[in-house]
């Protein structure tokens, strides 16, 4: 994590909490940015904190929103609590609305949730087992346009044990059960409502530290303190989530005290500006969302493993990392595992063969009978090693990455030609149609659904014709894993299969930034965003945020 208090250059902070055995779906790594959590102090209460986010929330419903959901998350994390949350001090899931960790049985696979008995909704009504069952019923109701029912569809039976206890029985084990029910829904408020639209602009009753007071669509959402919050009334009176699409504007607003906190995607030039702001702290969050180069197996000679391996060996990922990522995070290295961060237990280097080795690439091609033509480009089995490289128009980071990749590949006698494509065409037409040789796209293998989407034989977003039944089996094992150890082992095995097949080249992990005025204290920023869900970002315990006097 990089922490830059008071306008200095980035200084590496290494205060990473020791991590327990975790998978990326199960945990996050956090650190207190500047020792701001001083429990001995009596923080002042009152005031309004303003958060600038790039996108306005298209809806306030975290279960139905699709596409640009970042705006929704930026609000939802203030107003909804889930059953479990990642605790920064231990980096483990801990109960939030639950009285204790859920009880899990393996055969049959059941989960028993025991809710706190004293939690209230923002209108003062008690949070009960009926609300949990209602949430489940809502999420599996085909009338409602739920974006993702993964996990919920496996539930075969929901049993109300008592007023605050529910047992769910699953058709098969579901290893990512901790991420279920990240938002609880109030039955007494929603029972007769149209769930597709009820939370479009307002959430009258919620369980989180803040409640929606006013929503000026496209402009801002004003949140006021939830007087009935189960962890105590928030110190702040209000939080305003404002949409500021232009990052440079948000920087000036932070500099001029018009906002207190912003969370843009990190970029070197932006970081320079943020770190130059006095009286502000800027932190970079690494993630497990990668930039990758995907090979189309349907396009010879990319169907040949040695060709893909040669390309992987020709690419200088270290140079790309140095240019694009190190300015953000001096500790970053080229991706060694797409499923675990280096600080996580169970991490292993699955991509050791992907280090830059132009001579090795040449030797590999020559050993497979490839010869060079007049332009010094290799020809293998009658196919010239000249490939189209589809990348996104207007994306500076991807443009730079292409230039570096192209230059290093050329040293090994491989010619890459940029096919710069407008995003809608790139992702809407060329990717689904398999109309590419090499495709630059971001993705995440951190959880089973993300991994299998791109790489399973039947993956919904697999358009490379890559198929490895062993990889699929490992992902199936991961999905059904009953223990964390089993999950990590299965995900690692799947990642090793992927690496061994040279199905794609993972380049680097994307980084995000959180910059906040030093007036706003109590903000805890994770050093690594391992689970890009609702429970693992800097919105942790926002009821403890306060404005310094």
């Amino acid at each position: 994590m990089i922490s830059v208090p008071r306008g200095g250059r980035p200084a590496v902070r290494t205060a990473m909490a020791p991590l327990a055995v975790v998978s990326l779906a199960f945990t996050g790594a956090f650190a207190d940015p500047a020792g701001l959590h001083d429990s001995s102090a009596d923080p002042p209460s009152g005031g309004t904190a303003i958060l600038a986010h790039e996108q306005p929330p298209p809806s306030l419903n975290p279960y139905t929103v699709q596409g640009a959901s970042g705006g929704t998350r930026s609000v939802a994390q203030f107003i909804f609590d889930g059953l479990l949350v990642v605790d920064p001090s231990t980096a483990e899931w801990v109960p939030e609305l639950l009285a204790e960790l859920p009880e899990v049985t393996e055969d049959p696979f059941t989960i028993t949730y025991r809710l706190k008995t004293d939690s209230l909704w923002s209108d003062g009504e008690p949070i009960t087992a009926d609300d949990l069952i209602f949430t489940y019923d809502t999420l599996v109701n085909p009338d409602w346009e739920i974006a993702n029912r993964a996990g919920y569809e496996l539930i075969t039976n929901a049993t109300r044990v008592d007023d605050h206890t529910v047992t769910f029985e699953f058709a098969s084990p579901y290893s990512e059960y901790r991420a279920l029910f990240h938002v609880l829904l109030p039955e007494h408020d929603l029972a007769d409502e149209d769930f597709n639209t009820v939370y479009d602009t307002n959430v009258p009753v919620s369980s989180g530290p803040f409640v929606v007071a006013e929503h000026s669509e496209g402009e801002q959402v004003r949140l006021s303190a939830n007087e009935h919050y189960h962890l105590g009334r928030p110190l702040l009176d209000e939080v305003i989530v404002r949409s500021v699409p232009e990052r440079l504007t948000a920087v000036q607003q932070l500099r001029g005290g018009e906002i207190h906190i912003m969370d843009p995607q990190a970029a070197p030039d932006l970081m320079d500006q943020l770190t130059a702001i006095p009286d502000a702290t800027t932190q970079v969050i690494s993630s497990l969302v990668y930039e990758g180069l995907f090979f189309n197996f349907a396009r010879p000679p990319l169907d040949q493993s040695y060709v893909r391996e040669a390309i992987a060996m020709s690419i200088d990922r270290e140079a790309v990392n140095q240019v694009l990522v190190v300015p953000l995070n001096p500790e970053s290295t080229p991706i060694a595992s797409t499923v675990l961060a280096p600080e996580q237990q169970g991490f292993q280097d699955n991509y050791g063969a992907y280090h830059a080795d132009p001579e090795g690439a040449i030797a590999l091609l020559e050993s497979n009978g490839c010869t060079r033509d007049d332009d010094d480009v290799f020809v293998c089995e009658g196919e010239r090693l000249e490939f189209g490289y589809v990348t996104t128009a207007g994306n500076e980071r991807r443009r730079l990455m292409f230039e570096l990749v192209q230059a290093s590949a050329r040293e090994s006698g491989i010619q890459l030609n940029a096919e710069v494509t407008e995003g809608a065409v790139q992702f809407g037409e060329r990717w689904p149609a398999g109309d590419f040789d090499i495709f630059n796209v971001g993705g995440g293998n951190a959880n089973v659904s993300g991994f299998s989407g791109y790489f399973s034989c039947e993956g919904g977003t697999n358009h490379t014709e890559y198929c490895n039944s062993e990889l699929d089996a490992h992902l199936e094992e991961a999905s059904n894993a009953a223990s964390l150890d089993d999950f990590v082992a299965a995900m690692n095995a799947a990642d090793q299969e992927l690496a061994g097949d040279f199905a794609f080249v993972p380049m680097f992990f994307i980084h995000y930034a959180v910059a906040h005025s030093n007036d706003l204290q109590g903000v805890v920023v994770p050093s690594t965003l391992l689970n890009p869900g609702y429970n693992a970002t800097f919105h942790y315990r926002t009821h403890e945020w306060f404005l310094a006097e």
Partner: protein
Amino acid sequence: MVASVVVFFGVSSIGDPLGQLRLEPSISAEALQRYVDRKHLDRPLLVQYGLWVKEAVTNQFGTDLLRDREIWPDLVKAMGRTSQLVLPAEAIAVLFAAIVGVTSARFRYSVFDHGFTLLSFLAYSLPTFWLALVLQVAVTSFYNSSGIRLFYTAGLSSPNPGTGLSFFIDRLQHLALPIFVLSVTSVAVYSRYMRSSMLDQLGSEYVRLARSKGVRERRVLTAHAFRNALLPFVTVIGAHLGAVLGGTIIVETIFDIPGMGTYFYNALIARDVYPLMAWLMVTSTLIVVFNLVTDLVYAVIDPRIRYE
């Protein structure tokens, strides 16, 4: 109508509006199919266009693609916010340009004339986004050094703007920079036309006659030359409205004003043809209406012009 065809087919042919969604493993096939069904995306473009026309005519442009939200209420809100920006900006630009144009013409080749000619060309060639960002930096630096909040850098209002005069001042502090940026280019354009038009009038025979009859110079300028010079000036203002509305896309995005420009920008980024079409229809109508108003203003300015 022609514009609607061009835009609908143009935007629709750029790419799949669900392209980004299709990349997200968390979006189920069932959810994607709902979008396809809702807007008949599996039908030929011509059919889709026909269905859009029906929605536009019978249902106030219908709903957008991704959120299924009604377009018209959002558009009305956006228009209200943009009018707070465009109307003052144009009023200031017209007033200032008239003064500068008349004065430059009256004192042709003077230091004033040369100075404003230089400034006009400078203002016309300044990239709007650059000017906006520089102003934001300057205003923030002033605040940080003096502690005095003259203007805000973005948004429409403060968290607690108050009511009455307090609200008005707060809104003014927020809109001052975008209004200034939007009016700069207009002043540059209008003032050049005003100067040129005034020079034509000041060189005409009726002005020479008035002067030879001993009419006071101020009266020659205001009652005779200026009034006649207004005709081409008004024409330019009417014709420039499209450019002003285009300028709001940049200005509103940078200054975080959720008006028509931001509405257009967001729809374009989302590749959502339905709000884009509604935006186009509304702005086209506004330009037509404004041109009609311009024609009516002719009759007011010049009594010789009458419409039967």
